Each structure stands twice: as C-alpha cells, then as structure tokens.
C-alpha cells in the first residue's frame, strides 16, 4: 500500500508539472497563432471612437503576426513591422477596430517625392460565403479594405486582386495617436453595408479579417507591406480570445495527464503489483 501511494503521488506530481509546462509553453514558443479575434460587446455608455478611451481596456486584444507580403515589387521582403494587436468592439449599429503596433518612426507626410506615410489596412470578404485569396481578394471573390494613412486620411476600397483597389465613398470613422513608439488607430463603420460591394457586419456569424501595416520611412507602400494571414472576428459567439488558446493547451495538458496515469498504471500492472 505504501508503495502504491508513493507511485500515485509521483504520478500526480508529474502530471501537475506537465500541465504547468503545457500551459506555459505557448507563451514561450508561441507555437500556434489563434485565428480568432475576440469581439467585445460595447455597453451603451462606453465610447470607442478614440484610441485613448479607457473603455478599450475592457476589450481583449489578439496579436496578429505579420510577414512581408508576396509581390514582385523592389524591396518587397524588407518590411519592418512584425505584429499588430487587434481589438474589436461591436455596438448595436457599429463595428470598432483598434489596431496597435510598434513603429519607431512616425511618418505622417507625403509632401516630398521621397516621403511615404505610415498606414494600416483591414481587409474583409465582401461576401462571407467563401474566403477570398489573401492578397487583395480575387476577381470573383472580392474584398473590402478599410485603409488609414498617417496623414489622417481614410479610404474604403474595393479590390479583386493585387493592383485593383478602387475607392468607394468612405463611410469610415478614424482616430489615431502615436505614443512611445506605438501607433494606435481606431477605424469604425456602420454594421449595415448600406450598398453593394460593402461588407455587412453579421450579427451572429464569424467574419474573416486580415491586416496589413506599412512603415513609410522604410519605403513601404502598395504591395510592399507587412501582412497577416486570414483571421476571423469571433462574432458568432465562439471561444473568446486568449482563453481559446489556453483552453486548447489545457485540454492537451489534461490528455497528457491521463496518458501518464494510464501508462503508470500499465507499468505497475505489468510488474504484477496489483
């Protein structure tokens, strides 16, 4: 009996250690991005139009990893921004997105031949039934782009592949601030599409989303951009944000514990200890 007790204690300790590592591992190696971007429901009194509003603190952020987009343009692979934090808030009639990313240079001017401004863009499928090609959509599967540039302008664009963006009349709201080497940009729009070629923000269905960032002083513009892969706004009420990632690892951890216990028990039985 003492022997068995010892073993069980050992197994339990082992299991706890395993669970602890498995839970800690994603933080250390970030093995898998979670493609879900949690959506926070904004209360009636809350305000999200400005990136500095404290109400944003209640909205969980998803970190989107960026890589140089593929394009035949000069210096296409030398983009400088590596990640962007995306927060999403819905109210009854509006979708607010807050994008935050580190950029050591604040480039707001396009007044000289050699000056390019920092910029960010969010891309949605026009029609949510199928996921468009990541590079600006495709001819039969177009995307809507919400584009903000650091000279304070915003644009709503329609695109069906690289080099095809066409401006729509912008119905966006935008606000931004730059502090401590970080851009924070809020883009918002009515949830209802209000016309053809505009993405309707659904009530209870996930919506694909991708992000791109340009660092102006690095000569980034057009297809020379740091872009994410497709993620989705978890509007469908699925698992939310970071817990989703943790949940996966916890399940994996539990599975490992069970496997360990079963193995220990198996070994014990083989030794004929029961």
């Amino acid at each position, binding site marked *: 009996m003492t022997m068995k007790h010892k073993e069980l204690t050992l197994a339990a300790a082992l299991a706890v250690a395993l669970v602890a590592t498995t839970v800690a591992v994603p933080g250390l190696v970030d093995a898998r991005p979670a493609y879900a971007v949690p959506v926070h429901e904004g209360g009636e009194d809350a305000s999200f139009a400005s990136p500095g509003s404290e109400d944003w603190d209640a909205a969980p952020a998803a970190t989107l990893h960026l890589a140089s987009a593929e394009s035949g343009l000069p210096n296409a692979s030398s983009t400088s921004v590596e990640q962007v934090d995306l927060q999403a808030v819905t109210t009854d009639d509006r979708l607010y997105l807050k994008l935050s990313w580190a950029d050591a240079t604040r480039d707001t001017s*396009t007044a*000289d*031949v*050699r000056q390019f401004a920092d910029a960010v863009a969010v891309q949605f499928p026009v029609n949510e039934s199928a996921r468009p090609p990541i590079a600006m959509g495709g001819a039969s599967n177009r995307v809507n782009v919400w584009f903000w540039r650091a000279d304070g302008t915003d644009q709503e664009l329609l695109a069906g592949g690289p*080099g095809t963006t066409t401006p729509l009349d912008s119905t966006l709201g935008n606000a931004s601030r730059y502090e401590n080497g970080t851009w924070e940009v809020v883009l918002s729009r009515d949830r209802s599409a209000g016309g053809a070629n505009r993405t309707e923000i659904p009530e209870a269905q996930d919506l694909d989303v991708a992000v791109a960032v340009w660092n102006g002083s690095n000569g980034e513009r*057009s297809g020379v951009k740091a872009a994410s892969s497709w993620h989705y706004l978890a509007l469908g009420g699925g698992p939310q944000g970071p817990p989703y990632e943790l949940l996966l690892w916890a399940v994996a951890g539990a599975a490992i514990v069970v496997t360990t216990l079963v193995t220990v028990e198996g070994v014990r039985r083989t030794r004929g200890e029961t």
Partner: protein
Amino acid sequence: MSSQSDGGGSDTPEDVDLAEGIDHQVAMVMDLNKCIGCQTCTIACKTNWTEGGGRDYMYWNNVETRPGSGYPKDWEEMGGGWTDDGSERQPGQLPDKEEYGRAWEFNHEEIFYEGSDEPLRPMDGAEWGPNWDEDQGAGEYPNSYYFYLPRICNHCTHPSCVEACPRSALYKREEDGIVLVDQDRCRGYRYCVEGCPYKKVYYNSVTKNSEKCIFCYPRIEGEGPEGEVRAPSCAEDCPPQLRLVGFLDDEDGPIYKLVKEHEVAVRLHPEYRTEPNVYYIPPFAPPQHSERGESLDSERIPRNYLEELFGPEVNEALNTIERERDKVERGEESEVMDLLTTENPAKQYRLEVFDEE
C-alpha cells in the same frame, strides 16, 4: 482608327518596331546643333501644363547644359530602365527634392515696394536648380565646349515606367503610343518615378499622384488654338524651330527618313533599353584650336562623350551628316539637309497622315 491591335497596321514599315497593341507611334527629332538654350520650350510647357498645384518643381520639358549634371541632378546615376538584354527592369531611385531644385522665394517685395537697395535674389540659400551648371561645360580654353540638351518624356516603345506600376496606371495609348498616367488609377506609389531612367515622371504632392509629359495630346487631337491640329508647344514655340514631329511609322515623314532611312537621328542612352521615341541630331562643334587660334585636326566635343550619351550609333550618324554637308557645299542635293533646314511647317510637323484610318 485601325482595328488591328497586333502592333501597327499592315502598312507599318518593316524596319519599325511598334509596341504591342499600338497602331502608330508619335516621335520627335531634335537637332542639337540649333539649340540656343533659351528655355522658351520649357516655359511654353510650363505655362500649358505645370503651373502651380504641386507642379512648381516639375519641368516636363527641360533643357540642360552638356556636359553637366542635368535635371534632376545626376539623373543618369539613378538607375531604372532595363538590363542589357532588355528582359528585366533595373532598380531605380527616387530623386530628392533638392536634386530637382526648389522653387525659390525672391525678395521682390522688399525691392519693388519697400525701397530696399539689395540686389534681386533668392531669399534662402539657393544651391541647386534646373540647368544650374548652365554653360559650364568642359574642356580648357581655347578648347572648352558645351551644348544644350532639351529633354521631354521619350514616349518609349518599351517603357519601364509602365512596367514598374503595380496598378497599371501608366499605359501607352493605342492610337499613337503616347505614354500617359491614368489619374484615376494612380495611387502615388512612385514606382514609375523610380523606374524611368530619364526621370521624366514626377510626383505631385498635392494631388498625391504621378504626372508626366502628355506630348500635348489635346493639341495633336485638334483641341489646340483655333481648333487646329498643332504640334506640341515645345516644338511650335521653339525660336530656331529645331524639332520635327510626326510618326515613326510614316515612311514619307521626316522622322522615318532621318531615323530609319538616313540613320542620322539617334537615341539618348539607348543602353537603357526603353527604346525612346525622341531622337537627336548629334551636335557638331568647330575643331579644336591651337593657342595661336589655328584650327587643328581634332574634334572639340570628344567622340567618347557623345558615345556615352548616344551610343556607338552616333559615329555613323556624324559621318553621314558630314558627307551630306559636303554635298550641299558642292552644290549637290541632300535630302537630309533639306529636312534639317526646312522652314515649311507642313514638312516639320506631320500629324494628320493617319487620320483617315
């Protein structure tokens, strides 16, 4: 217009390569021996197309002194164009605004209205501008030399500006090969500015778009003064009338004859491989002089400098022109010299030959 889109009509001369999908190609020949550097062409262009609205620094037509740095400064060192075999684009640079030269503020106010005794001059440090090195040239007295080089967009047959644009905002017009920037498609990315080895596309920071020479297309379409078909302003306003304008594929026109038949008009920097459609009659200069003022049997403008600018073809061109000049001196007929000295506008400007198509 012709319905063909396979590069020229069936009557395109065999030795003329038109760009794919182009019916005809406008072209210009400039005789560098006649340019007096007066900049009338520059101002004619400016008053027509580039006054204000973010265009102050732009000279779609500029005239620079050679040898010299040109406009923008040292544009020949800024890359762009194609590799030697013409298959791949070369990376290019964006000029700095100082390399174009800023629009200076002058002390007009002080001098004209406030009684200042100061000389009229730019108020802030003017250190560079278009044709800043005017008449400097090269060589030592008594054998110094220079000439003027008027430059516009070459409306190239193989334009690297068009190829550089990720949005296909630049294009060659089907009817005459004029290269234009579609202002609705342009998003100001400036890959065309980088990509043109002649630096003949300009960024407008007010409209946030790129702009360039349009070969005065409204004039050649008959939208000019008095509703007549007119050659581009830079050509018509030139006091010594050194520009001939027409179509490269018009076998009876002056361009075809000078470029293809007699091969006396050559391209600027053919090694950029954009196949320009502006051609130059290379400059002659008096021979070198001795200290005592005697003519020597030695060329004043070094041949290798002209080869640097116009490629090896310049040698044959110069030889031919010399032969033709000698013919005229002997009282013989010379079609080349007739074409280069005509004062008949109908022979200088042939722009309506394909109108019936």
